[in-house]
């Protein structure tokens, strides 16, 4: 029978068991060092908790900084894409105008006399080829489409960075849990020394949703939409 079993038996059956006060004191004497050891362990462990919580806060800050850097790059990409798109539009307009000019030139050459035609025979062939060559607007249109797609992809990168907000809320939730455990441990230890109960140190500058999750599952939005639809219909 171990000490705790014996203690329970003494408490439950103090008379019938026939165990004397001396025995009880001996058990308590054996337990006290263990309790001291537990108290010291809890105190030492608790003292690490604020540091762990602070490190989690540092993680949140670091990911926010990194996210800002990524968003800077994405913004820069977007601005450059916009510049290229504008440049391509100008080139497209310019090519259309030049194409029209070449066609007019080629047509006017047909009305030239033989002597004049001989003089420009070398250029005539090239001009006719240019005039007959289909304008490459499809190619420029294709490039613009590619750029629009790249712009869409960069926007997707930016939208995926919502994960930073969501994970920082989850981390904040964990920090609150840690603080709650720390307070309970501190209060448990404080009872040994007769200290007053501590209240959790809550960071009021941060709010969070402990159930926040990063999920592309649209069912939560669908559920919200159906509730909104009900409200809209009823009001």
């Amino acid at each position, binding site marked *: 029978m171990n000490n705790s079993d014996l203690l329970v038996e003494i408490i439950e059956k103090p008379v019938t068991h026939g165990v004397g006060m001396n025995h009880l004191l001996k058990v308590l004497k054996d337990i006290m060092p263990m309790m001291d050891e537990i108290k010291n362990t809890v105190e030492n462990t608790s003292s690490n908790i604020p540091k762990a919580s602070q490190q989690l806060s540092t993680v949140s800050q670091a990911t926010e900084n990194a996210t800002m850097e990524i*968003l800077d790059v994405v913004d820069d990409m977007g601005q450059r894409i916009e510049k290229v798109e504008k440049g391509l539009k100008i080139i497209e307009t310019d090519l259309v105008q030049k194409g029209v000019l070449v066609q007019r030139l080629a047509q006017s050459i047909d009305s030239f006399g033989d002597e004049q035609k001989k003089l420009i025979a070398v250029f005539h062939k090239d001009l006719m080829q240019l005039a007959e060559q289909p304008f490459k607007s499809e190619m420029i249109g294709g490039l613009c489409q590619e750029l629009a797609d790249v712009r869409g992809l960069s*926007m997707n990168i930016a939208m995926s960075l*919502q994960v930073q907000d969501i994970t920082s809320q989850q981390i904040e939730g964990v920090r609150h849990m840690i603080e709650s455990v720390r307070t309970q441990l501190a209060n448990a230890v404080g009872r040994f020394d007769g200290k007053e109960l501590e209240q959790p140190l809550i960071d009021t500058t941060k*709010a*969070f*949703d402990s159930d*926040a999750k990063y999920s592309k599952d649209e069912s939560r939005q669908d*559920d*919200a939409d159906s*509730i909104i639809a009900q409200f809209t219909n009823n009001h």
Partner: protein
Amino acid sequence: MAIKFLVVDDSLTMRRIVVNALKAIGYESCIEAADGKEAFGKLQSEGADFVISDWNMPEMNGLELVKTIRSSSAFSDTPVLMVTTRGNKDDVIEAMQARVNNYIVKPFTPQALKEKLDQVLKSTSLVK
């Protein structure tokens, strides 16, 4: 008419993402606030046609902001779109009872934002 948006979120990342998404769909005019208290102050001092707000924020949360806006005579009709991680049925009901105009669960897509904005704009006097 250029619609002026007030984007409210305690996360700098989210404010930037929402503002970027608004710009991508053609809305350039945006001001920002980090919580409900600051938002209502900016609404009073700078004005805004449309509020896009998070729910979980320090000082004054998004739901309290909606209630404050609705109870204010000057801004009671200002459209409010809630954009939040809170996707539980009870949360959505609470927000709708507080009279938000629409509700988006994070993470969202630019398409979802545009769709909800269009729905709200259609139901109000604001037209792009």
